[in-house]
């Protein structure tokens, strides 16, 4: 197909012909075209089907406010639904498909909905399809869901990259129309750091769509020259294809830069889009204005568009939707479109002006005081019915109709922090309110000053004013002569008596729907919006809100400002999920933390488990082992029988120093630390303010003024944060300094009866029980002089040590331990064996310290010191935490050794009902004990301390388990602690 609707002129590069396809058909356009302008050049007006009624639709606009011309852009895994053809930049090889149809675009079977419109009015799903009730879920809803929605997803992973970035500036200028460019010139020349962002791929805004001059240049040339000057300023960052999508607190603006959307495939390693976070000391909103449509019967046919859009297509892209067009307007701006189209050689059938005193023209007919009342045309406009001022009617044969109902300032960004627009009667529109985001000012059409001269002057002044506040000397520049036409608009929202006149073309909301909402009592603006879905689509009602408000006002007998308006929220335009995710996808969703033994563990074929961000070795399978249990059982038995080694670097470590370090720990822990001797370690329990257990660990006193506190892996950060809070806010007068050293030290548990013998080969000090007893600690050296720390503590219940060296030596040390331990068959064990051994020993961990348990519950009630004050100690004495039959930690074993005892199962009395009302407690941690030959569990049981030996039922209705169990001590192994002290 030739470009039959291509006109002369325009800002396209005719030397660069670009091939593209739409619904499989090949067309040609030019560099500088959008998909919409290129289709229009080829005579295509029909580009999509509407959301609900599947009515044929073409572009209503020429910009990002487009509700109709939505397509599926690209194909395969790059397919992107609901892309606006009016902003999609044409490139060679572009493929697009129309969407929301069953069959072809010309013969959409779901167009039957349009015939059923009486059943599909606003809120129809609240009122219809109610009978028979069972049909809703099984029949109606699936059908409606299948029919609903617009484009489709490829259901494949997006192959492209998306970045996030951060920019800083003195002044952010949002929009590069005449106001934005004038502001940028002023700001740039002042030396301030300036960012000028515009969503278009060509800066200049409406200047590229108009024919008037600025000084002795065309508007477009002036814009290009201005951008060229700005490009020479190192302090100005020009951001094309960049939409500022929101205005957040403290001068922070998110902006999406479409880096590679205008090419078929991004260059290797390059992002498709970048989500910038712009930190701006000041911002200047130069977002322009959006023209309003007019409501009349069947005003949504392809070919009917905003008059300003028609002018843009003609002047910027050199295309016309048809050779013969008409204009329907209530203001002078509509006449500008007629004049420009006429100058381009397009036949003007008539200008239909609602005003009796409409301007006249010698070039074409102006029908003053007239209205377009209806249109015809199955897949596009063919005829428009006009009611003339004298009441007679006339039918115009046209293929396109430009509507101009006046202009709305684009105030969206002023509303993102709850600012409310205010009514401006002179332009019959809402303008920016008085409450603006901090540091924001507004210039140009966004203020309601619509002339080009006003845009230039307000842009310059606003920039100068903002920069003066920042201490810059902004020089006022002389403004070139340009168009300064006053706004002349007579409000006219819709044609009297119309019914199926579209207000919101994207959500298929008509005048009739608004009237129905009013009739049914949905009269608040917010209710209207939600009941009819007016303005709720991806275009956020940029072209529809005002029409709805006007009709509501009329029905309520109020003025529009009395009815009020809804406000806008970010994002300003639809934003891809990909750019919101950035690089945080797949395995890079979050960073990983590797322990110092990771490389060595990989060599040992370790199976890893994610613990927070840490990757920990879960177990170390050996050849011939067929199940994880087999491996874990071996690791446990080897440790208990000889010696095992486990990387415990992930446990939190906090260095606590200062003259008041011991007093500080006395506050942090519920048990006493003031008298802990240097060279000794003590188990400590931290309580929350409310008396519930927060975390447990150890504190090792390396010097009078120096402790190392350990935390559980999961609570390393929360505990450190808590300690900093206590230090800075609760006890700022204490001399104590904290710093995390979790990653600074590689720390390994060496456990088992041969652990001492093994370490004696490495450690440069006396390891005898006398010299280094249970719960001793020391700064030592290893391997002939490397600084290290040694702690005789045990999580497994065995004679055990934890040895720490600076992380840079972690890899070397584990290899040394394995070498030294070979004669004892030293066995590396992972978190699973660690878990088995601590359950065997009855040590609480995260499952027991679960945010609901107290020291009493954990059997540590007596640890809460009464002779000192510590965080949580007072509230731990609450009556509710100290009842006689409170939960107590117990051990649970099956009566029949073959039976399972699942964690999560609930304890019930041996006889009696099994229900929540008779719940006696629950199992928290469970494991198979290779030492005992059956499963064991830890749990909490009401009055558990007095129920040792009782037989109960452990039930798990979810998993179908009902096991007879016996309540025992939680210390399954070595209850007297002889191994620890061996």
């Amino acid at each position, binding site marked *: 197909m030739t470009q039959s609707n291509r006109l002369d002129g325009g800002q396209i590069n005719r030397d660069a012909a670009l091939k593209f396809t739409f619904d499989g058909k090949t067309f040609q356009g030019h560099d500088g075209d959008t998909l919409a302008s290129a289709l229009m050049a080829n005579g295509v007006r029909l580009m999509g089907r509407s959301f609900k009624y599947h009515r044929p639709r073409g572009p209503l606009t020429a910009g990002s406010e487009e509700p109709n011309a939505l397509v599926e852009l690209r194909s395969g895994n790059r397919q992107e639904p609901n892309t606006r053809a009016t902003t999609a930049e044409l490139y060679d090889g572009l493929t697009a498909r129309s969407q929301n149809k069953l069959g072809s675009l010309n013969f959409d079977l779901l167009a039957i909905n349009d015939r059923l419109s009486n059943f599909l009015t606003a809120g129809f799903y609240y009122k219809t399809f109610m009978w028979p009730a069972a049909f809703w879920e099984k029949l109606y809803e699936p059908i409606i869901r299948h029919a609903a929605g617009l484009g489709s997803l490829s259901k494949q992973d997006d192959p492209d990259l998306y970045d996030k970035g951060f920019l800083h500036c003195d002044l952010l200028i949002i929009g590069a129309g005449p106001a934005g460019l004038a502001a940028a010139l002023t700001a740039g020349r002042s030396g301030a750091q300036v960012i000028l962002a515009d969503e278009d791929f060509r800066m200049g805004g409406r200047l590229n769509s108009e024919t008037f001059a600025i000084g002795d240049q065309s508007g477009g040339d002036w814009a290009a020259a201005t951008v060229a000057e700005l490009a020479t300023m190192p302090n100005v960052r020009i951001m094309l294809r960049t939409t500022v999508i929101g205005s957040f607190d403290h001068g922070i603006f998110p902006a999406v830069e479409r880096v590679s959307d205008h090419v078929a495939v991004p260059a290797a390693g390059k992002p498709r889009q970048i989500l910038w976070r712009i930190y701006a000391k000041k911002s200047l909103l130069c977002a322009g204005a959006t023209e309003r449509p007019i409501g009349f019967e069947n005003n949504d046919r392809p070919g009917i568009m905003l008059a300003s859009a028609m002018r843009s297509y003609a002047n910027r892209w050199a295309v016309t939707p048809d050779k013969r067009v008409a204009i329907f307007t209530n203001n002078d701006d509509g006449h500008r479109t007629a004049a420009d189209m006429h100058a381009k050689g397009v036949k003007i059938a008539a200008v239909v002006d609602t005003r009796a005193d409409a301007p006249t023209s010698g070039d074409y007919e102006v029908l003053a005081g007239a209205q377009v009342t209806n249109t015809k045309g199955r897949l596009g406009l063919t005829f428009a019915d006009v009611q003339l001022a004298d009441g007679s009617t006339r039918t115009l044969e046209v293929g396109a109709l430009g509507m101009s109902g006046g202009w709305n300032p684009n105030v969206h960004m002023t509303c993102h922090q709850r600012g409310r627009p205010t009514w401006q009667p002179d332009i019959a529109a809402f303008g920016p309110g008085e409450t603006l985001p901090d540091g924001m000012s507004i210039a140009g059409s966004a203020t309601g000053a619509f002339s080009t001269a006003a845009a230039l002057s307000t842009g310059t002044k606003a920039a100068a004013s903002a920069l003066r506040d920042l201490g810059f000397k902004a020089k006022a520049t002389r403004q070139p002569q340009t168009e300064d036409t006053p706004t002349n608009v007579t409000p006219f929202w819709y044609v009297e008596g119309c019914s199926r006149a579209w207000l919101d073309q994207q959500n298929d909301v008509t005048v009739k729907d608004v009237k129905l909402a009013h009739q049914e009592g949905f009269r608040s603006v917010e209710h209207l919006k939600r009941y009819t879905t007016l303005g709720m689509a991806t275009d956020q009602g940029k072209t529809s809100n005002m029409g709805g408000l006007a009709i509501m006002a009329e029905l309520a007998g109020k003025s529009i400002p009395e009815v009020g308006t809804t406000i806008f929220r970010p994002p300003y335009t639809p934003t891809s999920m990909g750019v919101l995710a950035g690089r945080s996808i797949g395995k890079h969703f979050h960073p990983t933390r590797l322990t110092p033994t990771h490389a060595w563990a990989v060599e040992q074929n370790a199976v890893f488990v994610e613990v927070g961000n840490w990757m920990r070795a879960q177990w170390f399978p050996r050849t011939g082992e067929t199940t994880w249990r087999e491996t874990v059982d071996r690791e446990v038995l080897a440790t208990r029988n000889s010696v095992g080694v486990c990387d415990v670097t992930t446990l939190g470590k906090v260095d606590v120093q200062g003259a008041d370090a011991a007093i500080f720990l006395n506050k942090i822990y519920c048990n006493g630390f003031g008298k802990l001797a240097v060279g000794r370690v003590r188990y400590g329990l931290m309580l929350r303010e409310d008396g519930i257990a927060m975390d447990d660990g150890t504190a090792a006193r390396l010097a009078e003024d120096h402790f190392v506190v350990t935390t559980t892996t999961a609570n390393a950060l929360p505990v450190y944060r808590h300690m900093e809070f206590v230090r800075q806010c609760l006890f700022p007068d204490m001399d104590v300094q904290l710093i995390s050293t979790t990653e600074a030290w590689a720390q390994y548990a060496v456990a088992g009866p041969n652990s001492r013998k093994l370490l004696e080969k490495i450690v440069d000090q006396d390891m005898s029980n006398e010299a280094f007893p249970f719960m001793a600690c020391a700064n030592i050296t290893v391997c*002939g002089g490397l600084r290290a720390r040694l702690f005789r503590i045990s999580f497994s219940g065995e004679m055990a040590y934890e040895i720490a060296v600076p992380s840079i030596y972690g890899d070397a040390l584990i290899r040394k331990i394995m070498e030294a331990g070979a004669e004892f068959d030293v066995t590396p064990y992972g978190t699973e064996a660690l878990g088995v051994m601590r359950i065997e020993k009855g040590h609480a961990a995260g499952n027991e310290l679960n945010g609901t348990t107290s020291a009493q519950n954990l059997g540590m009630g007596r640890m809460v010191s009464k002779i000192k004050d510590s965080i949580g100690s007072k509230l731990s004495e609450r009556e509710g935490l100290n009842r006689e039959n409170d939960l107590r930690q117990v051990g649970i074993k099956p009566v029949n050794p073959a039976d399972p005892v699942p964690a999560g199962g609930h304890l019930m009395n041996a006889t009696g009902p099994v229900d929540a009302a008779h719940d006696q407690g629950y199992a928290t941690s469970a494991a198979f004990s290779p030492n005992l030959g059956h499963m064991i569990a830890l749990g909490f049981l009401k009055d558990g301390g007095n129920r040792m030996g009782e037989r109960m039922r452990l039930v798990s209705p979810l998993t179908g388990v009902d096991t007879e169990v016996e309540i025992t001590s939680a210390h399954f192994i070595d209850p007297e602690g002889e191994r620890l002290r061996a």
Partner: protein
Amino acid sequence: MHNLTPTMALGGVTDTIGTITITENSGMSLASVAARMGGEKKSALVLKKMLGEVPGPGRCQQHGLGAGFWMGPDQWMIGAPMGTHELLADQLKDLLGDAASVTEQTGAWVVFDMTGAAMRDAVELLCAVPIRTMIAGDTQRTVIHHLGCFVIRRNTDDHVRIIGPRASAGSLHHALVAAAHSVA
């Protein structure tokens, strides 16, 4: 003398992407210094003697082969070549005595040097520091790929030092390389 060999987080990796070079800096000893109550003056005197100036908020002070940057009120991170100062924390403690708490940090961090003409473009994709207006010695604590890091603008315009958590060196390195590819 012990016989253990230190291991770098990523083995001393160097990547050149376009104009950008990213190098894992192998030879840094690090120690944190926090002045104790009443020890602020002495701490400042010791640091001034060592660094020429006590680094204030947002600043790094380089002096000879050593350097120090501000981490918080009366808190600094001190760095020196590993070859001569492996026991930096002990050396600092000897100088500071009870005036300050000193903690060895060498194994806690990975240090990357990013240099090249497009360095600033890459940093803009990594973190919220105002890299274009930072001058030599400017230091910011920030977040890169969810990781708490220090970013130090070094003496030459195209050089930034990024100090991040060692355990996440791989993730941090991935982020740096990805940003470099984006702007290469």
